[in-house]
């Protein structure tokens, strides 16, 4: 039989193209800078991308003028805009500031591949965006490399404490240990077995801070309580988080918490076993309405608001911001659907007040 490679190629190429287009639409494997702002209801739908080919030409970007009526903001984030965790917290902050600062927002979510994210960030930098928010500590080296090439563009990255001494880089971080401390104390009071299940992704950044704060808070109430965290090694492996939660339940844990976008699986375990769950980064009540006690919610709007004000004033970077319970960057969101004993709520309120006024010191 004689082969017809050209004909075969003509048949296969469209199939491959369809596959690649579908992949890019999903926003998971290819850079897809969105051209419009995700409204709260449409946040799950990053729209079509401007061509990333412009990334090859790191030309000068328009300087942000203090008199500009519109500020173009791009967000690059590692997980989905509706992850009920880290990324969603920033999306909601930008949406809340959209009217006040007349923002034009673009979002590229699911940028878990740093090399791809770097390409997306560079694309935004060439397209006249005034502020590019690289929402993940993994993007640090990318910002360090790109920011000097685009001195008229402001970059913000977090959670991290370093601006690399660059005049056009803001950094932001969160004292997630504070909310962790409050929730850990509540968990210890709710636990009968005095075994807590604590699940994290990798022992870095705000995840480690939260976990450490949670266990410190628990031990402040019951010094002998078992609070041994398990780090699964992945921010996004739902199965592994589920397995970790199941393991904790087997080991008599009767209150669970976790951080990272993959905790949705662990929350399912809490729901199945009807155990209390403490969330962090964003409110997780919708996942288990009877089980979520409270969530530490990151509210980035005060920090992003300060950054935008700085940009309007011509200051493009050089400052590190920290979200805390005191400045409203972190909040404890209690679930009204959970029947929280009055003494536990009173303890939480007392700790929040103490941390806010400085009378309670949370270990770092």
């Amino acid at each position: 039989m004689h082969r017809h490679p050209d004909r075969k190629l003509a048949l296969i190429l469209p199939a491959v193209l369809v596959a690649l287009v579908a992949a890019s639409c999903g926003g998971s494997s290819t850079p897809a800078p969105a051209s419009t702002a995700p409204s709260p209801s449409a946040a799950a739908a990053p729209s079509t991308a401007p061509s990333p080919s412009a990334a090859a030409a790191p030309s000068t970007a328009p300087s942000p003028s203090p008199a500009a009526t519109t500020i173009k903001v791009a967000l690059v984030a590692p997980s989905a805009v509706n992850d009920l965790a880290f990324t969603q917290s920033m999306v909601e902050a930008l949406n809340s500031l959209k009217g006040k600062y007349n923002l034009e927002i673009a979002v590229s979510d699911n940028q878990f591949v740093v090399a791809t994210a770097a390409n997306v960030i560079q694309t935004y930098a060439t397209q006249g965006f005034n502020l590019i928010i690289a929402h993940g500590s993994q993007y640090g080296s990318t910002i360090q490399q790109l920011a000097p090439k685009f001195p008229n563009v402001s970059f913000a990255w977090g959670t991290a404490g370093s601006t690399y001494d660059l005049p056009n880089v803001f950094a932001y971080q969160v004292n997630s240990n504070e909310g962790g401390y409050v929730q850990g104390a509540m968990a210890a009071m709710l636990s009968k077995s005095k075994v807590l299940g604590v699940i994290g992704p990798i022992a870095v950044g705000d995840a480690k801070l939260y976990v450490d704060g949670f266990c410190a808070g628990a031990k402040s109430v019951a010094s002998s309580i078992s609070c041994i965290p398990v780090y699964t090694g992945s921010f996004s492996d739902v199965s592994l988080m589920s397995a970790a939660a199941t393991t904790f339940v087997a080991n008599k844990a009767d209150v669970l918490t976790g951080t990272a976008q993959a905790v949705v699986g662990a929350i399912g375990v809490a729901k199945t076993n009807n155990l209390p769950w403490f969330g962090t980064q964003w409110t997780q009540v919708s996942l288990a309405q009877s089980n979520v006690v409270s969530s530490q919610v990151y509210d980035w709007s005060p920090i992003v608001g300060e950054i935008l004000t700085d940009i309007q004033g011509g200051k493009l970077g050089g400052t590190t911001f920290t979200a805390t319970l005191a400045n409203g960057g972190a909040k404890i969101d209690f679930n009204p659907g959970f029947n929280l004993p009055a003494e536990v709520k009173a303890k939480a309120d007392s700790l929040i007040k103490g941390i806010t006024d400085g009378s309670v010191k949370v270990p770092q």
Partner: protein
Amino acid sequence: MNQFFTVDVLTVTIASGIALATPFLLAALGETIGQRSGVINLGVDGIMLLAAFATYYTALKTGNLLLAVLAGAATGTVMGVVTALVSVTLKAEQGISGIGVYLFGLGFSALLFQKLVGTPLPIATLPPVGIPLLEGIPVIGGMFFRQSLLVYLAFLLVPVVSFVLNRTTYGLKIRAVGENPAAADSLGVSVARIRWSTLIIGSTFSGLAGASLLMYGGIFQVNLTQAEGFIAVALVYFGAWRPVGVMGGALLYGLVGVVILTWKSLGIIPLNASDLAATAPAVITVLALLFLARRFRQPAALGRPYEREG
């Protein structure tokens, strides 16, 4: 370490390991059938993702878990048709077309999730079903005989696939097509028909794998599989293209993963070694692969599209 060797902890650890191994086993069994006929399907992970979403969405909308699992399996079947069309009929390079299917599954499942669901909501999962009499056996009953129906199905498929491959005419044709398609063709065996059938069956298994993964966590997420489909392909080599060997690999991978988690939760593995320990399942599987799989030969025609001479 003494805390680990208690009946309660060991029971849950092994039961969880078996449940965690199930998606790997189903996907790897399906891949084994395809590879024995000479077709390598690298699109397993993408098929699992699409099937997981179909399972999730069906369960979310209907609340019928059995229908949801069937939707996942049917999605696998449809993707098997697509894969067979590209790999067998169009004779595409199997590695490249498989990656195309994977990318399609990754992107399209994410797109559907974002457009049709938005904010993720958990679904009910398949409940554990105790096998009468056997579940009452001390220790062993809790480990093996209180699992979900998909777990039982996966492990029942091991002897079934083994029997079909080694003891039936259809299995003989599959092996013949995988070893020497020209010879099989000369004896009147339709190479294309056999390969179409194995890809459709194998992809249906991948669909079930996606459904079982979804049922384990009870929620869908973008890139839910975390490359489990690719690990399943590796497990076929680990198991030397034999269903029992593949089962051994899947169990090893699942059990090591859960044992590591249990040791972390008991404080046996110190926190500063936590991230290193997370790589243990992959490292152990690769090492075992290096030592075991060399002794076996892969199907001679694996990965080669069949062209009739003359």
